[in-house]
């Protein structure tokens, strides 16, 4: 099974899995920390709400519209 990293932790995924689905099934199952410090998880699942924006290989992208790739570095706390 291919593997990526979420906040430094390895995560194995099935081909075609979205980064949002990966985030929601690993770690604290969240995608970002809000302005007032709340942890948040994907909400709309379709590229509208921006709750799932994470750093993927250094760029901020929407997890729900990104497919997991081998070796991706995903960060939810930056």
């Amino acid at each position, binding site marked *: 099974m291919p593997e990526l990293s979420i906040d430094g932790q390895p995560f194995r995924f099935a081909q075609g899995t979205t980064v949002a689905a990966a985030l929601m099934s690993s770690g604290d199952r969240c995608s970002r920390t809000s*302005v007032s410090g709340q942890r948040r998880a994907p909400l709309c699942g379709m590229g509208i709400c921006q709750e799932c*924006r994470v750093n993927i290989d*250094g*760029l*901020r992208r929407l997890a729900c519209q990104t497919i997991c790739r081998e070796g991706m570095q995903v960060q939810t706390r930056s």
Partner: protein
Amino acid sequence: MIQGHAADVIIIGGGIIGAACANELTSHGLDVLVLDCQRPAATAAGMGHLVVLDHSPAELALGEYSVRLWRELAPQMPDNCAMRNNGTLWLACNEEEMAEAERKHSALSAFGLGCELMTGEALAHGEPSLRPGLFGALKVSGDGILYAPNAARWLLQRQPERVHQQQAQVVEVQGNRVLLASGQWLKATAVVLASGIYAGELCADLPLQAKKGHLLITDRYPAQISHTLVELGYVTSAHKGNGPSVAFNVQQRPTGQLFVGSSRQFDNHDPAVDAAMLGRMLRRAMEFLPGLGGLNGIRSWTGFRSASPDGQPLIGEHPTQPGLWLAVGHEGLGVTTATGTAKLLAAQLLRNPPPTALQAHLNAYLPQRFIGACAHA
């Protein structure tokens, strides 16, 4: 329909200038009525950069005095005004621009402003996000930033028993009387016109020109830069002449967002974002901050600076309309100079001595430069 005395002073415009005037006048015991019709204007559109410029001694005096007043107010301002004393770095790309930095350094130092010249190495060390190879910079320590819409709101709410606010559009001004869109006339001892870019609608003889600007804000990316960064090309080349121009100007908001400017267009009154200008402005910004290209912009917009022919504001009584006082034409410096403008206007209106800091340049702010018999003398 004529109504009696509405307040000691009616202020037209509740932006940063009107709000600062209201705050100042009430501190002298006057009752103020602020009329605002909630149209989009420069206070909401601008960057909130508190910056001392020195195109002329008068500009330097007003800017230095005003920023000092802002810093005195800062401890009392609520958090949401987002006031920070982060300083400005004027960036020099080459020897010519460094010479301008040195000239500026002398001018500001002579005025007692805290500023220092930085070598290219010191600059690279202080602001590592900047592209390598810049020639140097001038750091002006006293400059700052704030969030002007909330600062204006705070200034208007400091003395609620003396400041009355009304959402109304003024359609005509005659000296110390104003006509509202509702058909009602209001009268006061004095009327202060502080409606920025809209002032010309009420006073046809104001020599004001709109200069369109673009801004963009990014998502939150904390700790990218420490100071407000401005290119010296701003003064030496980029914004000279009358054609459309862009100049690098970036600040980091306390939210962690980067505020990216700037552009200048004359003779363009369309508030829509001009795609080509936005692109040009951002390309310029990326030349200074290469990492900017990978950050997400989340919103861009435009605003209009209300500029007089000599770039200085018009502060004082209208030469041919007794009772009408002007506080207009601040171009890009309305937020910076709101505090000083208010002190000067209040002193003139109350026949008090003007602020000492401005005494040497009083004529440079007077409307008589452009309006009335003196203008043609």
